[in-house]
């Protein structure tokens, strides 16, 4: 049978071509035909190779780059006090919100995700938009308000990942971790590394992984930077940030790698020391001039600290190095859109389109940019495309909401009303749509209905100043000054520099102090 290839070679070839499913299946067959306790030397080597290859294939199926996995659950946000300074000086901490340093657009122009954090152009899993103040508040607010995905109590997604991967193999887990003799594997570096990755990424058993890594690094006499980084990763997962920092630092001394810099910066960000992270990134840039990930990291920190101007500068540096960087293009594009330059934003988003990005959000943004840049021929078709590409109800709602804005722009109030209603039908918690519906009702003179909508909007999104202000103005008009005052104060808390709110409060206080 000349057609039959050597199965080991074929499996290896599958692995290189990233056909992990076929590779794993072939390895399983190989292992079944050659039980592990064989006597001959060559057979043992073959089985070991197959075993190792299968671990690697299984790991690669679920592999997520650890640098991008940065998820804080409610518990980490609330109950964890890693930051040293409780009341840091403005500009030195990521936890202070509401202080715009770079002169970015105000909430009157750019919508807010939480008070003081303008929405970004690009959502990463690690994106945190402000933090809840108390546990109660964290539980009450919508689950996606602080991170890019629903918040869980203690980073529970890691647990879920593990179970999910177990489901894919019907005959139970490949390796029974509790029966492994870690010391034996730690002695064989070529097996140990693959096994560690399997334990860490596939099984998500950080403790066992840490045990293995500790034994292995001992075996290599602390001369392998890779093991140090892995130990640091384990410590980071376990929440031991200072220990993780030590490992990463020592690894960086041994061998300068971009990865290590990124891990170290992650630790510093978790410890709420953005300035240390920035100087670290700058050091890294000295070693690796023009490294895109480092530049992006700097830009992200500036963005988190609300210093949009310097964030944009660094994103521009990123684009000079890599002109297809989706994150940089999206961030600069949204920044241009909100600083009265929709034409330039349109160019950035069209660049994304040319690169083959094809999703609902992009077409939605394209539609908005086209409309505000007065390219009327492409506006509605973009929105249509966005509607057809939307994968969930929230996205549909957002597209309808934006279509409502277009309808307001052409002065067709009935269409706008229908659009906002549709946005609500698709996403019942769409506070902006409630607010805009209330404004439309107010124009028609239906005060009671408007009040109802505004109250709903204010309850759904307490960080938005618009519903509060509108409610205050409406109550002031009908003469209910108490409600007006309460709402105006909330509006002032959400957006302190709002001139109309300030005037309203001043006027109300005059009323209260009179006579």
């Amino acid at each position, binding site marked *: 049978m000349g057609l039959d290839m050597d199965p080991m070679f074929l499996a290896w070839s599958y692995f290189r071509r990233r056909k992990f499913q076929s590779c794993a299946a072939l390895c399983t067959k190989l292992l079944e035909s050659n039980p592990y306790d064989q006597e001959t030397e060559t057979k043992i080597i073959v089985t070991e190779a197959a075993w190792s290859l299968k671990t690697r294939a299984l790991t690669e199926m679920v592999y997520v780059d650890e640098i991008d996995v940065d998820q804080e659950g409610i518990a980490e946000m609330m109950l964890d006090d890693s930051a040293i300074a409780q009341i840091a000086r403005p500009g030195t901490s990521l936890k202070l919100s509401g202080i715009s340093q770079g002169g970015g657009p105000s909430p009157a122009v750019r919508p807010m995700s939480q008070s003081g954090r303008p929405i970004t152009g690009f959502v990463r899993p690690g994106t945190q938009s402000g933090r809840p103040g108390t546990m109660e508040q964290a539980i009450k607010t919508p689950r996606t308000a602080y991170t890019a995905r629903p918040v869980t109590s203690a980073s529970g997604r890691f647990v879920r990942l593990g179970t999910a991967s177990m489901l894919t193999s019907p005959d139970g887990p490949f390796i029974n971790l509790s029966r492994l003799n870690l010391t034996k594997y730690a002695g064989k570096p070529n097996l140990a590394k693959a096994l560690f990755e399997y334990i860490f990424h596939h099984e998500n058993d950080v403790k066992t992984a840490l045990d293995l890594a500790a034994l292995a690094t001992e075996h290599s006499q602390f001369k392998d930077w890779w093991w140090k980084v892995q130990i640091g990763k384990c410590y980071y997962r376990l929440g031991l940030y200072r220990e993780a920092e030590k490992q990463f630092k020592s690894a960086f001394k041994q061998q300068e790698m971009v990865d290590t810099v990124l891990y170290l910066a992650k630790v510093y960000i978790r410890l709420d020391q953005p300035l240390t992270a920035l100087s670290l990134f700058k050091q890294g840039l000295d070693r690796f001039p023009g490294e895109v990930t480092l530049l992006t990291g700097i830009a992200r920190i500036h963005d988190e600290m609300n210093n949009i101007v310097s964030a944009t500068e660094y994103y521009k540096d990123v684009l000079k190095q890599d002109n297809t960087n989706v994150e940089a293009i999206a961030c600069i594009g949204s920044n241009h859109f909100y600083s009265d330059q929709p034409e330039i934003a349109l160019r950035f988003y069209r660049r994304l389109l040319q690169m083959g990005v094809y999703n609902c959000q992009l077409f939605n943004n394209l539609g908005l940019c086209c409309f505000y840049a*007065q390219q009327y021929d492409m506006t509605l078709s973009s929105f249509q495309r966005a509607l057809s590409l939307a994968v969930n109800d929230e996205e549909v709602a957002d597209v309808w909401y934006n279509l409502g804005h277009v309808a307001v722009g052409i002065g067709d109030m009935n269409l706008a009303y229908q659009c906002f209603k549709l946005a609500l039908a698709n996403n019942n918690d769409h506070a902006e749509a409630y607010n805009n519906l209330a*404004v439309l009702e107010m124009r028609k003179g239906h005060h009671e209905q408007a009040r109802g909508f505004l109250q709903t909007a204010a309850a759904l999104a307490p960080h938005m100043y618009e519903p509060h202000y509108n409610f205050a103005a409406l109550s002031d008009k009908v003469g209910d000054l108490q409600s007006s005052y309460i709402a105006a104060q909330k509006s002032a808390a959400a957006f302190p520099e709002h001139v109309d709110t300030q005037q309203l409060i001043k006027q109300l206080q005059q009323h209260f102090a009179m006579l």
Partner: protein
Amino acid sequence: MAAERIIQRSDVRKSQLRKVPELPILERRNWLIHLHYIRKDYETCKAIIKEQLQETQGMCEYAVYVQALIFRLEGKIQESLELFQSCAILNPQNVDNLKQVARSLFLLGKHKAAIEVYSEAAKLNEKDWEISHNLGVCFMHLKNFEKAKEHLNYALQTSRHDLTFMVLGKLHLLEGTTQNAIETYKKAVEFSPENAELLTTLGLLYLQLGMYQKAFEHLGNALTYNPNNYKAILAAGSMMQTHSDFDVALSKYRIAAHAVPESPPLWNNIGMCFFGKKKYVAAISCLKRANYLAPFDWKILYNLGLVHLTMQQYASAFHFLSAAINIQPRMGELYMLLAVTLTNLADPDNAKRAYEQAVSLEQLNPLVNLNYSILLYNQGDKKGALHQYQEMEKKVNKLKASSNVLEFDPELVDMAQKIGAALQVGENLVWTKPAKDSKLRERPAPSSKSTTNQQPLGSNKALGQAMSSAAGYSKTMQLPTGGYPTRVQKPPSLPLEPESSTDSAART
């Protein structure tokens, strides 16, 4: 040691001698409460009130009264109402208590109940301006203007106050009698000439009536007393704009932009300043910012349409003008501009319809008929053109008769003469200035289309309209027509831009 002890003992004896028997007087510490209250030391004040109320088991009227006042300052009107009510029970003969109960009711928006209580209070004290004033305000909220006026006038007779004047002026404006309002404000300014708000309002009223000299005087006075008065700055700037003094107006607006960086009227006026200086791109970007902040404002849309017409970007012009018409359907000039746009977009049928609408809505402006006439002429409909031309002449004659406007825009006159000659009605021209022969010859040439188009656009007349609309904007904005400020329609929350999702998000 011994000496010290003796001194101590004598001290004790002295203090025993000095001690006055403490009487449980209810109002014992009113002076202290009052002192803290007027120093705005509310925390201490509250503590003392609490002590005092505990001592007297809640019978101390003044403590309850001040507590209620503090609650009201904190915006807790409901609590303050309850406390004032208990005050009124403690001392039903006191007018102040009744007045405060009514005031709290008023602040809660219960105007009818407030009127009842005020009437009660009025029975106890006839000569109180506050009661009459507040009754007037309450009636104004209930839209009972006659009674409101009566009460306010009575309040003025008893004692004159700025506030009463202001409410009365507002009332006149609500009724639509600007002349009366001006009289009221005039009296008020005589009474207190240093009140910047009164001066500003009066200036704006004069501006509305076109009495620029007086308006300027008053606004200038207002600015002297309060140089950062945003309303006055805006009004003064728009007046300078009307007289084409764009640089000065811009320097005025620069001051205002610091105070209110996100005000749609301000950006509208700045945009029209740039338009006047022929900086069209800057004008568009300013106007678009204004429009972004206030999407429901038809004046900004009108100006945007006008600027785009000037830039010969007819598609955008059509968009903005039609949006403006949707929001403000009763305005002839809008339809006229829309018709001009439609002519340029090669849709003469709809243009004709728009002109029909414009002619039916617009009673005074001869420009509408002139433009319509030109369109009809270009279409070959000489009869219709002649009819429109005569309509225009009628309007011009009427305007001349009313002698408000003596000077017509030269470009308008010029074009009218041309078309008049083309229609062979040149002999009975309303303007005495004879038309030149060369122009007569040029007129019916087929190339006239471009001149026709540019006529209403580039003309100073159109610009003048834009200016006046810009000025008018600030007027309507600042002269509240409702009982309370009309700017309820805040810009709705801004276009929410959902973040583009990421590769990494997709991968996880």
